[in-house]
Structure formats: structure tokens, C-alpha cells
């Protein structure tokens, strides 16, 4: 194709509310559009599509495409890839942005290949240099950063949560929300079962205070101490992948490159070495406090306050001090 123009942003929502990641993607799209030119078009799938399209206007979209097909309410690779392909072919953008979620990780790679390009996954930043888009993404577990250009158009990128700023909501923005139908496709996959993982307390992504534990804790029981501290601080408990792999805490608590990305005001890392894969999950934390026996631990390079101490004696004492402050 030729004459690719502007940016197509796949937006999603839950219970009628546009996701915060969608707003971040739209913010990124607006900034990129300043260099690339063209319009920012939001696209949404399913019953809520027209509403999400309208909400997207307030966050920076110039217009929206709503594929209001109820068969798209639930993500399935076959029909979302087909719908995304149909919309992209019609809209002909220079760049497509998808959120780096479980859906995005599954959708973007196949969609990109199908439309003759390749996806740059988990991008944290974008810049336009002489009309060329550069996409920045972490690699080597977050130890390095890489910048890519796309030789084929459109460029396709997934955007990491909390990496980009959304615009301030502006409900005075107007634009066309047009509906589009796509041909139905055969869906060969069948969902046999779904299981909610019981996680107590608030979602890590929403927590303002997180107390997190790593391999150095030594046991599952150690997390009880972190629970007590978290409760005293009104926060949630997280973990590094090492602690999850060791079976000390459920996978829903995992923070890092292949876990959750969190943005608390205060992140207390207990007996966590600071491997880049873990740091990848906390770059958005406002203040990091690290407790580690090893003064050389990498976590201290990324912390505001560091305590070189054995958590076994430090944490109970610290919990007590926090209680006294109340």
C-alpha cells in the first residue's frame, strides 16, 4: 500500500470505562502525530465500542472506528486479528498502537505479520526524527534499551503500561465515531475453562504502597511479616519472580518484566537483589526503599533510601516504628 497516514490506536475498556493504558496510548499517539502528521484514530471492538470511541476523543483521538460486533466482546485471537486487519487495511495508518496486555501480547505479533509488517513489543518511548519513527523498548531483561525503525508500513508497536503520559481529559473535543462491520471469521479455538485467581486485598496496579519480597526472604512464611508491614502501611504485598517461582506467593503478586508493572508512591523492596527484570516492573514507583543484607546489591542503585540489614530483624522493628507513628 501507499499513502499511509496517521496513527490507529486500539483502545479497550471494562464496564464502560476506557482503560488507563488506552489513555496513555492516545497520549503517545498525539505526541507522535506532531512529528509524523496525520490524524489519530481510535478503534474499539465489541458492544461497548461506540462508547469507548467517544471516550477516546476526550483523550486525544481525532476520530474513532467502532466495530460494534458482540462476537468481539471476548478476546479471541482469530476474530480480533481479522477485525484489526480489516480496520487497518481500510484506515491505512503509518503506525498502529496496541496495549502491552495479555491480549496485546497475543494479538499484535500475528496481526503485524498478517498486514506485512512486524511488531515492536513493549515499547516505552517514541520519537520522530526527520519524519522517521523510532521506537524504544527495553531488552536483555531491562538491562539495555534498543531503538528500532520499521522498514515496512505501518509500524506496529505495543505500548507498556505506565510508560507514557495520557493527555488531560478534554470532553470538549469532538470527532466522528463511525461504525464499521467486518466479515465474520471461523473461530477454531474453544475456551474450556476460566479460573479467577483469588488475590486478597487491593490490586497491585492500584496500590499506593507496596511491600515486596524476593529470594532473600528464604521461605513462604517470611511473607507473613511483609503482610503485617503492608497492612500497617495500608498497602499491598508484591514479589519478585524468584519468590513466585519458589512457590512462596501466588503469581498474581509477581512484579517485573513478565509480571505486573506498578506505580506506587512507596515501594519497599525486601531481600530483592534488583535484577533488571524486576526493576522493569517498578520504573514508575515514586520512591523505592530497599532492605538487603548485601551492600553491593543492584537494588540500591535504583533506590531513594537503602538499609543494609537482615530483614528478619529489621522488618519487625520497622513495622513497630510505623505503628508508633500512627
Amino acid at each position, binding site marked *: 500500500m501507499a499513502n499511509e497516514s496517521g496513527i490507529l490506536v486500539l483502545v479497550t475498556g471494562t464496564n464502560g470505562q476506557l482503560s488507563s493504558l488506552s489513555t496513555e496510548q492516545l497520549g503517545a499517539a498525539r505526541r507522535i502525530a506532531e512529528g509524523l502528521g496525520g490524524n489519530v484514530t481510535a478503534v474499539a471492538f465489541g458492544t461497548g465500542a461506540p462508547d469507548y470511541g467517544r471516550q477516546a476523543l476526550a483523550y486525544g483521538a481525532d476520530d474513532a472506528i467502532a466495530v460494534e460486533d458482540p462476537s468481539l466482546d471476548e478476546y479471541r*485471537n482469530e476474530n480480533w486479528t481479522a477485525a484489526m486487519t480489516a480496520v487497518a487495511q481500510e484506515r491505512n495508518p503509518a503506525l498502529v498502537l496496541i496495549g502491552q496486555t*495479555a491480549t496485546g501480547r*497475543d494479538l*499484535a*505479533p*500475528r496481526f503485524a*505479520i498478517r498486514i506485512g*509488517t*512486524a*511488531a515492536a*513489543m*513493549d515499547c516505552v518511548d517514541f520519537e520522530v526524527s526527520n519524519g522517521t519513527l*523510532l521506537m524504544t523498548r*527495553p*531488552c*536483555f*531483561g531491562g*538491562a*539495555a*534499551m*534498543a*531503538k*528500532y*525503525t*520499521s522498514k515496512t508500513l505501518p509500524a506496529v508497536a505495543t505500548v507498556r503500561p505506565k510508560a507514557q503520559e495520557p493527555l488531560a481529559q478534554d470532553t470538549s473535543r469532538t470527532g466522528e465515531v463511525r461504525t464499521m462491520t467486518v466479515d465474520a471469521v471461523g473461530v*477454531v*479455538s*474453544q*475456551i*474450556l*475453562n*476460566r*479460573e*479467577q485467581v483469588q488475590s486478597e486485598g487491593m490490586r497491585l496496579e492500584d496500590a499506593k504502597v507496596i511491600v515486596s519480597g524476593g529470594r532473600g526472604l528464604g521461605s513462604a512464611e517470611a511473607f507473613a511479616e511483609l503482610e503485617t508491614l503492608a497492612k500497617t502501611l495500608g498497602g499491598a504485598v508484591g514479589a519478585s*519472580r524468584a519468590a513466585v517461582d519458589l512457590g512462596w506467593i501466588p*503469581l498474581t503478586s509477581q512484579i517485573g*518484566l*513478565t509480571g*505486573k508493572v506498578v506505580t506506587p*508512591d*512507596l515501594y519497599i523492596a525486601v531481600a530483592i537483589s*534488583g535484577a*533488571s527484570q524486576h526493576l522493569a516492573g517498578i520504573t514508575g514507583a515514586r*520512591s523505592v*526503599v*530497599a532492605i538487603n543484607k548485601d551492600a553491593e546489591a*543492584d537494588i*540500591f542503585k*535504583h533506590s531513594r*533510601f*537503602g*538499609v*543494609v*540489614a*537482615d530483614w528478619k530483624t*529489621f522488618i519487625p*522493628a520497622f513495622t513497630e*516504628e*510505623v505503628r*508508633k507513628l500512627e
Partner: protein
Amino acid sequence: MNIVCCVKQVPDPETPARAFKVDEAAKQVVPAPGNPPVISQFDQIAVEAALRIRDALGEGTITILSLGPDSARDAIKVGLAMGADEAVHLNDPAFLDGDGYSTGLTLSKAIEKIGNVDLILTGRQATDWDFGVTGLTIAELLGIPSISITKRVTASGGKIQAERVLADSYETVEVPTPCVVSVSNELGEPRYPKLPQIMQAARKQVTVWTAADLGLSPDQVGKVGARLSLEALYIPQVESKVEFIEGDSPAEQATTLARKLREAKLI
């Protein structure tokens, strides 16, 4: 059942930060002398997933497939030692420095050449570039279904079932064969080969193919055939501004930290 496991040899992710170096001009990671490359962890778990399926079915042929230079032989050996039957090594300078597309194309041609493959297993992402696209690219190019980022894979009733790891839930999906499934660390620990198995691995067949063997021309593969172009590779600078909390005892440190955090309005 014929299973292909795609594995990759990568720089050791346990390389400490101070030993991790990048050659910015060459846009490559400089191998750390004390940390030899390893099989990508999620790929080793993919081999484990294949072995569990074969154990459950009581039959099956497992082929390790790896694209890489000579050093990829080590990753292949791990797979063979764990219990895979044979291997295919895609070894050709033209294959190197590809992106998800050109590497996926090369792997998918190899899978077609192997023939009769029911299930392709990969790790969810290689622990060097962390893209997480290879398995899905193979599936798209072969026109077959895929299930990504899974913690459990089974074969039953002529179909494949896999449990996807989602943010707060698990979802079991079933697709017909042939298909691609990528696995995550939640699947569990890969089995540790015993010495007799490691020795046996040396006798297993490793077939080597080049671009010509796959009917691919040099401009279709590797860096030349890639759709994404790597423009820069660097280590982000981190200025350490940590304030260490002093104290003669943990109790003293605790008091000081609590005070400082209260002063900073963090608690």
C-alpha cells in the same frame, strides 16, 4: 505425535549488572567472560512441556529446532539431554541478526521441511531481546492456531489444550493440531538430566540446514530480510542517589527510616 521445540542460546540473564556491557557501535552485547551463554530459560521450559506431553501420551517424537551460530549447539544439547529425540540446527551466517519476521520465516520453513509436525512449542519470549513474537510469527506464517503464554499444555482427543496466564486469571483454550503454543515459567521447573542422558545426547542426530536447504535466498532471512531495523542499543544511565540509613542496630535503622519516610511524607 510429532513435537518441535524451538530453542535459543542467549547471553546469561544472571550476568550481574556490573559485568553487562554493550558495544554501541556494533549494536551488540559484549559476552561477559565469567558468564557463558545459556539456553533461554522459557525455551528450556518448552522442552519440559514437550516431555510431559510425551510422558502422558506414552508416545511422541520431540525435535529440538534452533537457529543460531555454532554456539547454539549447546542449547540443542540441553534439549537432547533432557530427553528430546533429535535436533535440527539452522546454521548459516545469513540467518543471523534477524527480527521476529525473518527469524520466524526461517523457523517456519524448517518446520515445513521437517514435515508432519503436530505441535510447535516455544518459550514465551527469548531472554535476550524479550520480543515474545517468534512462536506467534511461526503460527501466522504457517496459517495455524496458536495459544500464547501458558502454564500447562496437554494433548487429548487429537487436540491441544493449554492454560493461558492472564493478569488475574487462567483460561484453558483448546485448538486443533497442528498448532503453536508458547510457555511461561508458571509451567514449572524443567527436569534436570542425569549423566547417562547427557552422554546419550551426544549420540543423537543433529541435522544442519542452511538457507539453501530451506529454499530461502539470503535477502529473505536474517538482518537483510528483517522488517524491523535496530538503530541503537545502549545501557540506560542510572544515577544512584541512594541515601543509606545508618544505625548501630536494625532497631536504630528502623527508627531512622521511619522518621525519614514520615518527613518525606511517604508514610
